[in-house]
């Protein structure tokens, strides 16, 4: 399996993977951790604790303006952000694989049409459209929100896949399969797809980063769905009631740190994999 060798040889990949896995574990454990910290209190319930308490033994990160435990808020927001980012990553990778595959495999007219569309999505500013969509459907759940984000982040994955399919097509074993009149389906699933796994993974990591950027951008500005608490919305709320002027930076710093970890974790994974599978890139960036 390429993963074990990748893990052993690429420091970037290892660091990125450990950071990301750490965040995932934290997200999975969040219900238990919240229960442990504040018992059966709803983390979102206003007035459960004294407002603006300083960090101490009971409230490790203090409480916010509404008397909510900051640590618990961060803990319930993390899984929401992760779910949406990864779901969007999966959906856009799927679209990207289909489009990139058809484009790279068919070539010719099909390829130039699909490539023009992909380039169009890359060139035109799509974030305004995401903002409009998100604002007009305020009650979006995680899945629908992920679909909106994916619709605009698939071109990245499509590009990675297309270039790889094109290079795989030229390999002798694929040419051999074509010459021996194997049907397209068998060539695609038997010869090309198994060799695509790493690049699908790279596409996934990049699409997830892109989606996370867009998601946090939306929610930091208070444009995300109002039904869910995610890390961006925590930042937006904290900015809204001026935590900085009150000297309560921790309310703001906690979600920022988690998001920076998420951005770096995913970026290091994709960079480590790219360098590993495209050794020419090593040392060039």
């Amino acid at each position, binding site marked *: 399996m390429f993963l074990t060798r990748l893990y052993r040889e690429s420091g970037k990949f290892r660091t990125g993977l450990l950071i990301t896995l750490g965040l995932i574990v934290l997200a999975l454990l969040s219900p238990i951790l919240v229960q442990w910290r504040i018992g059966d209190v709803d983390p979102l319930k206003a007035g459960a604790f004294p407002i603006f308490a300083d960090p101490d033994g009971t409230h490790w990160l203090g409480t916010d303006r509404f008397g909510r435990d900051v640590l618990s808020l961060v803990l319930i927001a993390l899984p929401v952000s992760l779910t949406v980012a990864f779901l969007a990553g999966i959906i856009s990778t799927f679209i990207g694989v289909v489009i990139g595959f058809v484009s790279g495999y068919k070539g010719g007219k099909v390829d130039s049409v699909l490539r*023009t*569309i992909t380039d*169009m999505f*890359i*060139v*035109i*500013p*799509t*974030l*305004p*459209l995401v*903002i*409009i*969509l998100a*604002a*007009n*459907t305020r009650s979006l759940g995680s899945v629908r929100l992920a679909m909106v984000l994916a619709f605009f982040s698939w071109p990245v994955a499509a590009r990675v896949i297309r270039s790889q399919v094109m290079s795989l097509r030229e390999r002798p074993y694929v040419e051999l399969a074509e010459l021996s009149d194997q049907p397209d389906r068998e060539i695609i699933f038997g010869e090309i797809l198994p060799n695509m796994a790493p690049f699908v993974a790279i596409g996934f990591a990049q699409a997830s*980063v892109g989606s996370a*950027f867009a998601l*946090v*951008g939306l929610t*930091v*500005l208070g*444009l995300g769905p109002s039904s869910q608490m995610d890390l961006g919305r925590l*930042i937006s709320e904290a*900015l809204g009631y*001026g935590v*900085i*002027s009150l000297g309560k*930076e921790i309310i*703001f710093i906690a979600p*920022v740190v988690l*998001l*920076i970890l998420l*951005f*770096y974790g995913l*970026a290091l994974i994709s960079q480590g994999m790219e360098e590993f599978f495209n050794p020419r*890139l090593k*040392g*060039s*960036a």
Partner: protein
Amino acid sequence: MVAGNPAPAVPANDPQDTTPVGVKRGKLGNPTLRYILRRLGLYLITLWGSLSASFLFFRMLPGDPISGIISQLQTRGQYTSFERSEDMVEHYQREFGLHGSLFEQYVRYFQRVLTDFDFGPSVLSYPTPATDLILRALPWTIYLIGVSTIVGWFLGIVLGTLVGWKRRTKWAEWITNGALGLSHLPAYFVALILLIFFAYRFRLLPSNGAYDSSMNPSWSLEFGVSVVRYSVLPILATIVVAIANWMLSTRALVVSILGEDFLTFANAKGVTPRRLLTNYVMRNAWLPQIAALGMALGGVVSGNVLIERLFRYPGVGNLLVDSVIIKDVNTAMAVVTLLIVMVLTFNLIIDLIMPLIDPRVKFES
């Protein structure tokens, strides 16, 4: 420019020596002309495609814009009845171009926009036309994007070349790692951090607006200073990330050029290292980066929407968010159309000047 001598211009009307072997000499034997026509065609197709797509996108949004207009009028006390009379609805449908079938609306939309640059009235400050709102906001956005793109691109390329050229030194490695770190952050995140430190914590710079609200816009020096002060943080946020990204891609280009035979040859020929850097390495590195500038602009425009909102900067990005919140479809549509046209036109211009400055371009299909 940094590269010293300008690249040799390609004789535009003299296809004799520039036609490569194997290129068919049909009616359009001139490769430059063919390149220009193909690029223009692609521009028109992309423009039509993306504008049609955005038209459909707006028409398919859930919710009814007319009820948005009426509730907006209600909040301002201009129209108090809660029941929407048929006449009222029809009047607004007509005024906002929402009557007739989808196809009729589509044709009318293109007619209005193409002939009069008219997007209909805005809801945000009804009955001011959406076009007026945009034209008021546009200079601010062009100022932000223009300064941050040009400065970020230029500094990024210069730094990237230096770091690539001196890639074995310690300081070059540090700068590269620093840039790598910054390149993984979205610009609005950098903006957020700058906002916290410089605007809230140390109160060195203003946190929102485009100029001191006690002043009236004028061409005075005082007002100019205020504009610059208010724009430092939003511009800095974009520039920091832009420099990091341009630096890394330039560095990658430079490192790949350093292995080329022509450099070894020039070196052996006795070209001084300085000349080697400016005339050989840099020229080959910054030319592709001009083409890349067009591809990157869309991302910058997108990011700028968030930054304008964060700093409540009165550009089109902030206008977009304001209009989206109250379902002002006309204004939002006008902003999106304008941004798409801007980015595509910029790309067209870059692609058209590329063959003049980089002879390799026009033969690529």
